[in-house]
């Protein structure tokens, strides 16, 4: 294992889907950032983009939230490795900007948990990276 497992299967799913994506979709920056350790990594692997540490992740989410009027993540299929504190989810992201333009992405996230928060997050996107 990379990190000591702590959360149960149901807790991992709740953390990733409700506490994380639920707050992203509400554009609740503080609650979103509370899901990450201070030294967490968020990497979009399909574009070799890395945000290192909570300050960089905060800046990325500020820009992301400002770029879209509405952000919806849905249609989750979760794969859970409870023994190793890892969870993966495929989902549809529907993003609508201020001009009414809609971006649909079929993405996959990999989360590695440490002590109840995200230590590493890896995002694989079906289209251009929106987490810049």
């Amino acid at each position, binding site marked *: 294992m990379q990190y000591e497992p702590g959360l149960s299967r149901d807790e991992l799913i709740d953390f990733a889907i409700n506490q994380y994506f639920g707050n992203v979709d509400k554009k609740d920056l503080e609650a979103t950032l509370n899901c990450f350790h201070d030294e967490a990594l968020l990497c979009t692997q*399909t574009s070799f983009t890395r945000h290192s540490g909570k300050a960089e992740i905060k800046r990325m989410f500020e820009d992301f939230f400002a770029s879209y009027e509405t952000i919806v993540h849905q249609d989750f*299929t*979760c794969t*859970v490795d409870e023994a190793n504190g890892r969870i*993966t989810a495929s989902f549809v992201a529907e993003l609508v900007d201020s001009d009414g333009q809609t971006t649909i992405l079929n993405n996959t996230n990999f989360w590695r948990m440490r002590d109840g928060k995200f230590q590493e997050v890896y995002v694989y996107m079906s289209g251009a990276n929106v987490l810049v």
Partner: protein
Amino acid sequence: MADWTPGMAGQEPLPYPFYVDIVTKRYFDGVDNKNLSKVLNCFHPDAVLHEATSDTVHNGRDAIRAMFEKLFADFDDIWHGNFVHTADPVSNAVCSQFTVLITPNGGDQLRYENCNRFYLKDRLFQHVFVYMSGDNLLKEGDA
């Protein structure tokens, strides 16, 4: 199981090592050694392999065979490693992150950071999703 869907509840769970082993010791070992039978033996006859970043779908083991025949012909060396798995007996699925080092015939080595989502029905792959950090390498076969 006519109404099977990827990761559906109620499937018979296999031992945790089965999921890691079918990905590394059977599937990717077969790919890296260009052992087509070993690769295809991981798939159901009506399996689907979907490259998500280019939305390329290979429907059925014959289409998957043609795709791999082209891949093996077009590239000298293929290596998959640096794996991190999310293996889940409860949903009969395993998702894997990995590095790919691959060299086109007569070309320079390429490095990819990819992931696959493998959804099993019973003991074989039924639906596989692939995400690539560069141009799609899993193109439609010529056959």
